[in-house]
């Protein structure tokens, strides 16, 4: 090892002395450039003493106890160095410490592609959680991020809304659904390396955080070291090509620093058929250090992302067409065209002021403004048949479940049709519009969210004394979200009538009674048009205490959230309560948490955390049918803030050979709200309606054990293992209310029907595999090449159950039990589907070459799912068959028309990256 000499030297230098002032100092130098390095973290873990190097690379650690300690010098992108020292009241000077670039950082490139995907569509609760975890050094969390993310694995079974993502101290989680939108800074990996991750409830220096923790991404220009980087990647996952280029100046003598980065990711088709990818990202950060006390930084992030989505499908469809099949695309004049494109462009501008009030106190003032648009395209067809090639009447199952007996001839015909074509017929849509171009039958439109959000906060951080650090912040966020639909391709026509063809009572068919029977064209708003206004103000305070044997913290937060809808259309179904402003929903929330780390010895530590947080319902879950009306969930049911009680206990063991951590955790969620929209048959007997399913008062329980273990078997071989055994269940029978647009719909009273409780208790929550195991190794050759492989076993993933099927409506018709009800069959039909367990094997490897002064070429490759294992990553029960009869009849022949829909994981994929650093 390169540090060997220094280490040995220090060992001999060390002397034991009680009572005296222990000081450790040194200077950190870049091994290549031999320039001093600023901002390098230097810490003594057991003593909880830490510092960073100044502009001259120097550091000083004070307040250390006597005895044998390990000084850790680390900076992202460089190899972490550990120096054992014996302290005995004398100052120890570690001298010049050379920092070596960490070639293994290229490994991140494989996994940063995780954030390039949103693994799922908005229709599923599963989404990208891995982005949060990649900043962690914890072996378990890194395994979850890098090895299990393709399986939709979720840490502790929790949604990403439970993890806060901040950029320069500004929270980026969306007010609409509480989730961070990773695509907003996708492709900027080079400049998003400076991340601080706090796992779980452990304290962060920026925010109270969620129960899954928080990540702060720092884009301060002065904190990047000088250099440039160009990389090219090739993959068959979501894109084919990626080019990234970055240049950072480092802090210049005149106090300026600049960082620029740009990238392009593109591909005509990803792993799934018809999923193109087209993304461009630009980043600029400029800092001016005015004086020692003040520094100002401007960051501009502009990431455009456009990609073709993929459909969840029933097993019938996958069986016929395979796991790459996607029903959303079709050929137009021989070119692949996806009808469901997600387009996102929400630039972020931030101004950050850093003020060192004193040596021990800093005050950061941050203002961020994000604006732009998200568009999700789809076809609208008020004068044509459903163009979806997997529409149930186009599949064999519909003919096999004919009530008059199976029609094998038709079923075979449909099978052949679906095998041979089975894609969207774009040409046909154009031809359909030819007859009356002024009144198109089908058009392509976008559901748009045009958000403008202003966030401002101040974060005060002060070391009150050697042992106590105070962090406090005050925050204000204001969102104006414009939501509407707009035609983006008239498919050869010139106009489209803005009516809802389901409306039968005059007026009902109007999207906007103020402009009835309006013909719309490109760029017009139609179907729905409303604003969401949200405002959050609040703050948090946190005290961290550090003592020799125990560290502990307490933190509290309070905030106030208001949500309001403002309808800009007077909807035909809701003439009196769709136009204008809704009730203002007001939620006061608070949270408190505390935790402690007790050091039994340097090798054995116990860590305990507990917290109670209340959370305002997201905008998404606050309005019953926001596209159509001002009706709030509170109008039709009870709308409460979510309460989360969470805690964990960890045992940490460290030895020169083994680092391991085992954690027991639980999280209880109460009073959660969920809204879904779908067409249901069998409501109160034979009625059918398009409904909003509003589930309130949901309690969930998540508990389990996590394990992570690393063993440095030899200087070149490291073994890694990680496991989670969890159980995530519904913990009560929540209340279900359904609403529908037509107030006089049969089976409803004023468009509402109280379904009573849904018997969900003890059903598993669809949160990815609840059991996961990983075992692997890394070989790291001193000659700058390395490779590794892992075997992963994932088990106990469940389908998302349909609440409406678990209400009394399932078995009766207006209070009378179905005469043909068979409890044995019913039980079978309501059995929650558990997906098959599976193994996934991944391999990675890389090499780097030095090609000149400070110039390197790196090569990195990974292969995921080497054995091309087919596996389901998620799925949901379609709510359409709402009662026993419908479900039984649809399932009678084994291929239901409205069976569960699934996503499959990818088969074997590769990622290859070459980079050049200078």
């Amino acid at each position, binding site marked *: 090892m390169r540090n060997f000499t220094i280490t040995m030297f220090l060992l001999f230098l060390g002397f034991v002395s009680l009572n005296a002032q222990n000081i450790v100092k040194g200077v950190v130098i870049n091994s290549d450039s031999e320039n001093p390095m600023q901002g390098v973290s230097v810490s003594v873990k057991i003593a909880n003493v830490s510092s960073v190097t100044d502009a001259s690379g120097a550091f000083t650690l004070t307040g250390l106890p006597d005895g044998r300690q390990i000084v850790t010098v680390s900076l992202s992108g460089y190899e972490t160095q550990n120096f054992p020292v014996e302290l005995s009241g004398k100052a120890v000077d570690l001298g010049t410490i050379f920092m070596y670039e960490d070639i293994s950082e290229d490994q991140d490139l494989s996994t940063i592609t995780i954030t390039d995907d949103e693994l799922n569509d908005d229709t599923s609760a599963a989404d990208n959680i891995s982005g949060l975890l990649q900043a962690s050094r914890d072996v378990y969390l890194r395994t979850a991020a890098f090895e299990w993310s393709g399986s939709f694995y979720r840490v502790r079974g929790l949604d990403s809304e439970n993890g806060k993502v901040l950029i320069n101290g500004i929270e980026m989680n969306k007010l609409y659904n509480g989730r961070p939108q990773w695509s907003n800074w996708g492709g900027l990996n080079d400049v998003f390396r400076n991340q601080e991750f706090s796992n779980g409830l452990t304290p962060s220096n920026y925010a109270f955080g969620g129960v899954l923790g928080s990540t702060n991404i720092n884009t301060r220009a002065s904190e990047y070291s000088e250099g*440039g980087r*160009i990389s090219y990647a090739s993959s068959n996952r979501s894109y*084919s*090509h990626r*080019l*990234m*280029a970055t*240049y950072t*100046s*480092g*802090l*210049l*003598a005149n106090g300026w620093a*600049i960082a*620029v*980065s*740009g*990238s*392009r990711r*593109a591909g*005509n088709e990803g792993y799934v058929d018809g999923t*193109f*990818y087209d993304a*461009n*990202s*630009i980043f600029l950060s400029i800092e001016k250090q005015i004086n020692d006390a003040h520094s100002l930084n401007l960051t501009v992030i502009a990431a455009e992302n*456009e990609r*073709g989505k993929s459909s969840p499908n029933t097993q019938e469809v996958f069986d016929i067409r395979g796991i790459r099949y996607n029903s959303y695309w079709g050929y*137009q004049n021989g*070119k692949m065209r*996806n009808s469901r*494109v997600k387009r996102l462009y929400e630039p972020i501008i931030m101004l950050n002021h850093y003020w060192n009030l004193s040596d021990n106190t800093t005050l950061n003032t941050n203002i961020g403004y994000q604006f732009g648009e998200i568009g999700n395209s789809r076809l609208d*067809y008020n*004068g*044509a*048949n459903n163009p979806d090639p997997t529409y149930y009447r186009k599949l064999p199952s519909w003919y096999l479940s004919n009530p008059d007996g199976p029609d094998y001839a*038709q079923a075979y*015909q*449909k099978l052949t049709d679906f095998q041979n074509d089975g894609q969207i017929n*774009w*040409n*046909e849509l*154009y*031809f*359909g519009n*030819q*007859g*009356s171009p002024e009144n198109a*039958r*089908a058009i392509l439109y976008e559901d748009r969210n045009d958000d403008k959000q202003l966030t401002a906060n101040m974060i005060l951080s002060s070391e009150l004394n050697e042992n106590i650090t105070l962090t406090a912040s005050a925050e204000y966020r204001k969102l104006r979200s414009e939501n509407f639909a707009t035609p983006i*391709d008239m498919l*050869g026509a010139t106009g489209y009538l803005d009516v809802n*063809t389901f409306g*039968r*009572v*005059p007026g009902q*068919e109007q999207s906007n009674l103020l402009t009835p029977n309006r013909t719309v064209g490109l760029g017009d708003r139609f179907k729905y048009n409303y604003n969401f206004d949200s405002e959050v103000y609040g703050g948090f305070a946190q005290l961290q205490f550090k003592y020799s044997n125990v560290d502990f913290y307490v933190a509290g937060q309070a905030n106030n959230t208001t949500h309001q809808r403002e309808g800009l259309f007077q909807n035909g179904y809701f003439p009196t309560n769709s136009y204008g402003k809704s009730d203002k929903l007001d939620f006061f929330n608070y949270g408190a948490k505390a935790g402690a780390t007790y050091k039994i010895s340097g090798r054995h530590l116990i860590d305990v955390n507990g917290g109670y947080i209340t959370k305002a319902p997201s905008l998404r879950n606050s309005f019953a049918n926001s596209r159509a009306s001002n009706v709030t969930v509170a109008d039709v049911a009870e709308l409460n803030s979510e309460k989360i009680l969470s805690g964990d206990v960890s045992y940490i063991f460290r030895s020169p050979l083994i680092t391991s951590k085992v954690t027991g955790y639980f999280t209880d969620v109460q009073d959660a709200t969920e809204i879904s929209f779908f067409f249901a048959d069998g409501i109160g007997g034979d009625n059918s309606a398009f409904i909003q399913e509003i589930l309130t008062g949901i309690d969930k329980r998540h508990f389990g054990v996590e394990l992570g273990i690393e063993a440095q078997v030899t200087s070149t071989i490291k073994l890694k293992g990680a496991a989670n055994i969890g159980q995530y269940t519904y913990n009560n029978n929540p209340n279900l209310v359904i609403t529908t647009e*037509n107030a*006089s719909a*049969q089976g409803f009273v004023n468009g509402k029907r109280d379904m009573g409780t849904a018997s969900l208790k003890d059903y598993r929550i669809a949160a990815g595999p609840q059991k996961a195991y990983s075992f692997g190794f890394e070989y790291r050759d001193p000659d700058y090449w390395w490779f590794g492989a892992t075997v992963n076993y994932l088990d106990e993933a469940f389908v998302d159950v349909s609440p409406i099927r678990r209400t009394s409506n399932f078995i009766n018709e207006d209070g009378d039990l179905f005469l043909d009800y068979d409890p044995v069959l019913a039980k079978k039909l309501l059995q929650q589907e558990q997906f098959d367990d599976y193994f996934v094997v991944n391999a990675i490897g890389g090499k780097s070459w030095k090609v000149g002064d400070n110039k390197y070429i790196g090569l990195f490759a990974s292969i995921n799912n080497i054995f091309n294992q087919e596996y389901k990553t998620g799925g949901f029960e379609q709510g359409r068959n709402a009662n026993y009869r419908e479900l039984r009849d649809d399932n009678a022949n084994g291929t239901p028309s409205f069976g569960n829909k699934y996503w499959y994981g990818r088969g074997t994929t590769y990622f290859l990256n070459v980079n050049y650093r200078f």
Partner: protein
Amino acid sequence: MKKINLYKIFAILFIAISVSCVDNNDFELPTMGADKEYANLKSLDEIIALYNGSPVEFTDDTTVYGYVISDDREGNFFKVLTIQDKPENPTVGLEVRIDDTNLSARYNVGRKVYINLKGLALSKYFASFQIGSLNGNSTDRIDTSEYLNHIERSTEIVDIVPTTLTIGELTDNHINTLVKIEGLQAQEKGLTYADPDPNNTSSVNRYFTSCETFESIIMRTSGFTTFKAHPIPDKKGSVTAILGKFSSDYQLFIRDTNDVDFTDEYGCNTPPTDATLSEVKDFYTGSGEATVTKNLKIKVVITSDLAAGNLHALSAFAQDATAGIALRFSEDHNLNLGDEVEIAVGGAKLSEYNDLLQLNISPSSIINQTTGTLPTPEVITFAQALTGNYEGKLVQIDGVQFNDNAKTYSGNNELIAECDGTPLTAYVRNDASFANNNVSDKKGTITGVMTVYKGTAQIYLRNETDVNFTEDYTTCGGGGTTTNTIFFSELADPNNNPNARFIELYNSGTDAIDLTGWVIRRYTNGNPESTSSIDLTGSTINAGQAFVIAAQKDAFETAFGFAPDLAAETGGPADSNGDDNIELVDPSGNVVDAFGVPGEDGTGTNHEFEDGRANRKASVTQGNPTYTFAEWDIWNDSGDAGTTNAPQDAPGAFTPKVR
């Protein structure tokens, strides 16, 4: 060395934006290829000409072309595509039956389509020609996955010019073509196209009237249409629609509400022009129903007496200088005798009811009602009255009397001018104020409106004063020939076949007897009054011949193998079930022969032939007005009072036509 390398920055930005492009934008408009050449291409009329009463199946490659006119987008057409042969002035159209929805998204209105008929069939459902999959005597919808192979599209989309027609000009040839009718308005204001109740999906007929021709027509709209609950504009204008027909009614099927182009004010506003009743009656062509297709009004005087009750409150008679007519109102009227009224008759229907021509109108068509002057009744002869030429006119006939002057007015009353002449019936309703008064037993002048009932002229009496009889009654009788050599020779009620009942008369004389004025009367059961009779006028019995009168001609012929000489009615004199009494009456009204005793039910007596036969003994040679058992042999099912209990079966036990 720390300087910002601007060139590096620009190089990086350049690199970042210059990589491969993605094919996710700029899609070209798809175009349809040029039309194919079809080997055996036929026009629609050539195909329809092949139909001769039963489905025509096509087994070889024949392609027919047409132009789409239907549009199922708004739900008024379901799983059907209607095409016509030409974009303008079509000669034929038909329905293509297809098991799919939203067909118009594929086959736009105006698009030329080619249908390969191989494997399909042409059929006719009522008046509509259809193409579909052959199923027995009709056609089914073509399968969802199959029709695409049969129907190909041309790039050509043309404007379909609807054929502008009046309702009266519509013919079966226009069925399944696009027609346009102008000047239409809904007969009733404020209606919706179909039932607005979303749960009622029945089709609804709405009636429209042309303000130009005053004809009306049905618009039929499905309860599945998107516009079912929309109001029909309370205006007037043109309707473009596909013509259909149900039973004998033409029906309009619109594609969407744009087909109803109503922009003019509601109402047929131009004032009607004066017309004579004769001109109005001329619209009637002699059968069926006719519409007054002009905007006319008539000025007439009411010649019926509503107050006297001898006519329903929906009915009236009216007359002007040119003609008279029966009026039939859709609701009760209040038109009294002598009222002078102006009536708008544009659009009114003329039809016959039991052969009486009626002008069907609504009370709301009455423009003006004042007291007028009754026309002077036209004096006509009795013979003129019988011709029927004076239908609807107020007439006066002299020298008439009631044939039967011993009854009340209620019911049919026969008026005669001479004893053996054809009578003229004056029917009086039970509700008439004079129904229960005795008819006049004198002779004189009668006044009334000439009418007709089932082809025979009748006279309507307005009230009792119409009967102005002051002269002495002429007693009839002595007309015709009388003799007692004609008598009943056999009466039959076959046990096995009551339909084969008959009466046999026999002429024992030496001369042929003309039966003019002779009547057989039947007194049913114990009824003392005659209950039915048959006039034998027109028949002759030759000397020594028997004469058979059957109750039912066909049944008799079936049973006995030859036709009877005369057929009475079912329930008439010859249809006795054996316990009735029967008399033979000569032209003077004298009873010549009798079986049984009127007023005495035959059951259990010596004049019962139930299920059997009464046969005059061979020794009898002349009629006897007093029933004498000894003259008869009687078989029946009781055997009482000296009769024989032996039910008789036809034909063997009977001897019709044989004395």
